[in-house]
């Protein structure tokens, strides 16, 4: 029976509202605006929010555990508590062994320093000793494939190259316990595979990994056990397949609720033209209805509509400009001639700006993760093998023109 390396009992983290992380893209802007606006809020009880509450579990040594759940469910908070970045409000955790955390790609990178210097800096910040980095330097450089630019300042690297270098450093981190937040979501596919492979290697050497991802295929590939975290609590835990199935079912049935507020709330809900959120025919006209209720008049506004698949890949996206809306409840209709998506679950992200768009100085009213998700329930028409199936579901027919005929035609033309 392997020894328990992470023991968590009644762990909880309470944030004062306004301290908590916002929606990803807005996080930096919002955090700054909020701290500037509310330096010290009077402490009212309703200003508190439990990001994580009464969580208990044990992880034996060598296990790879996946954390799944919606944005803001508390997955990252759990990782931050286990890695000591932030302190819990209640309960405790006992962690046995050296912990390495990977919550971001390129932690500690500095643009003015060269690639080589950054390997050392980032390595040291992630917890490697100088000797360890000395030893692994060649392997890191090899893995990254940016050897030629190693003595150039990082600011001259392309984003892709920076990512590669950052991953290479991270991949060579070998603590006894590795906490990984959705970092494999970026970078090109080939490199992602390489990193995933490296992580599998690490897990086989008996190290414990706690892994957050929205990409179920990654979770399936890496994890033996999965915790589904919902609203700050473990909703279900168990074998990977079972928990993922339960999670995806809940997504489909719309049991997941929640929204990301930015400024004034706008979005109330959505459905397909015929009612419901299950698309049964993607090859003919599809109409989406969005119920909106801005509490101010929108002039020269921007309505952004983005569809992501379950691997967080943006598969379709539209930006409607010069949108005018009166305050009060009304309906937005988006009509598409067809929406040939592969069967599966899709998340829809909506944004509403007033007075321009994100680039022209518009003010963000709301970013909304549409609930429920869009379920596409059509006949699978693409490649039978998942990994070759792509994102679209377009019917295709193959016919073989008789070789004799075409040759005859060709010959006739020559004659």
């Amino acid at each position, binding site marked *: 029976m392997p020894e328990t390396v992470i023991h968590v009992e009644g762990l909880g983290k309470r944030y004062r509202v306004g301290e908590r992380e916002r929606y990803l893209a807005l996080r930096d802007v919002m955090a700054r605006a909020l701290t500037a606006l509310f330096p010290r809020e009077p402490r009212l009880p309703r200003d508190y929010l439990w990001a994580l509450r009464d969580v208990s579990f044990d992880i034996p040594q060598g296990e790879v555990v996946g954390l799944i759940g919606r944005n803001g469910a508390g997955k990252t908070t759990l990782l931050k508590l286990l890695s000591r970045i932030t302190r819990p409000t209640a309960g405790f955790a006992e962690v046995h062994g050296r912990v390495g955390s990977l919550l971001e790609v390129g932690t*500690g990178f500095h643009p003015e320093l060269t690639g080589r210097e950054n390997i050392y800096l980032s390595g*040291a910040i992630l917890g490697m000793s100088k000797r360890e980095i000395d030893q692994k330097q060649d392997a890191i450089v090899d893995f990254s494939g940016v050897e030629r630019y190693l003595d150039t300042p990082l600011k001259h690297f392309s984003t892709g190259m920076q990512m590669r270098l950052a991953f290479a450093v991270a991949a060579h981190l070998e603590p006894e316990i590795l906490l990984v937040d959705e970092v494999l979501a970026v970078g090109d596919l080939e490199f992602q595979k390489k990193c995933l492979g490296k992580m599998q290697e690490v897990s086989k050497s008996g190290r414990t990994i706690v892994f957050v991802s929205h990409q179920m295929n990654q979770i399936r590939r890496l994890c033996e056990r999965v915790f589904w975290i919902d609203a700050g609590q473990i909703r279900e835990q168990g074998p990977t397949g079972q928990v993922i199935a339960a999670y995806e079912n809940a997504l489909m049935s719309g049991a997941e609720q929640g929204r990301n507020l930015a400024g004034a709330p706008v979005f109330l809900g959505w459905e397909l033209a015929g009612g419901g959120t299950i698309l049964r025919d993607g090859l003919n006209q599809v109409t989406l209805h969005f119920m909106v209720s801005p509490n101010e008049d929108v002039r020269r506004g921007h309505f952004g509509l983005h569809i992501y698949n379950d691997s967080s890949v943006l598969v379709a996206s539209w930006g409607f400009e010069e949108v005018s809306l009166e305050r009060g409840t009304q309906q937005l209709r988006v009509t598409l001639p067809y929406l040939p998506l592969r069967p599966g679950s899709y998340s829809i992200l909506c944004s509403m700006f007033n007075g321009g768009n994100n680039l022209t100085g518009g003010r963000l009213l709301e970013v909304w993760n549409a609930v429920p998700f869009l379920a596409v329930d059509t006949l699978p028409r693409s490649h039978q093998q998942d990994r070759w199936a792509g994102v679209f579901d377009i019917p295709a027919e193959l016919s073989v023109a008789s070789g004799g005929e075409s040759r005859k035609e060709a010959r006739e033309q020559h004659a």
Partner: protein
Amino acid sequence: MSGATAMVEPAAGANAPTMRIAPPGRWWALPLGEMWSYRELLYFFVWRDIKIRYKQTAIGAAWAVLQPFLTMLVFSLFGKLAHISSEGLAYPIFYYSALLPWMYFAGALQNSTNSIVENQRLITKVYFPRLALPLSSVLSGLVDFAFSFLMFVAMMVYYGIRPTASALWLPAFLVLAILTALGMGLWLSAMNAIYRDVRYAVPFLVQFWMFASPLAYPSSLVPERWRWLYGLNPMAGVIEGFRWSLTGHGDPPGRLMLVSVSVVFVMLITGVAYFQKMESTVADVV
């Protein structure tokens, strides 16, 4: 029992410690052991600060010499015009020996104040003892100090001043300057993480502090009866100490030093305590 099981754990390379993660307690402890285990990271932070400071500057480390040197020239000019007593020292020596610790202190104070805020990305993404940040900014200033000190050596040669046995005390005064900057830096960096106003207040603080230090004038200007009170400003002790130990001129700053050392001690202890209180929530606030 737990010790025995720890030893059979294969993946644990070193003696893997059990770490308890719990809500911040009421009491704090000096995290000396932890700082020691993170000494390499501290080294890398210092190394980063120094590297970045001189990258993309045309004359690089020459700035470390130019700043105190030019300031010294201006001070000397005004000192001469205003007939300020330099206690028998040449004006350039009198001023430069004071500017040495002062320039270091002012720089270290500003850098350490900003250290937490400037590394907020890092703080929210990875754990390390946060103390390493103000500590590294205080330490990295020593490189500039070394360069400007070389200039002073050249000036000593030029003015034909021979170092006396009092010069052996110099490291002690330097340590006092470092600790003053650190004690103050701990307070200010922690406050700056919560109230960004601090960042703007520090330049003023440094300016006022300069007038309260025997930089442009000798501390003999302060009546003997109040001299010990003057020591409440630890930089007064440091500057007097530098002048005395470098030139061998005058008396060692005795009683003044005693007060200064006590003040620094209190500043450090309270600074660490305040810093640690802030540390437990900084990743949520910063």
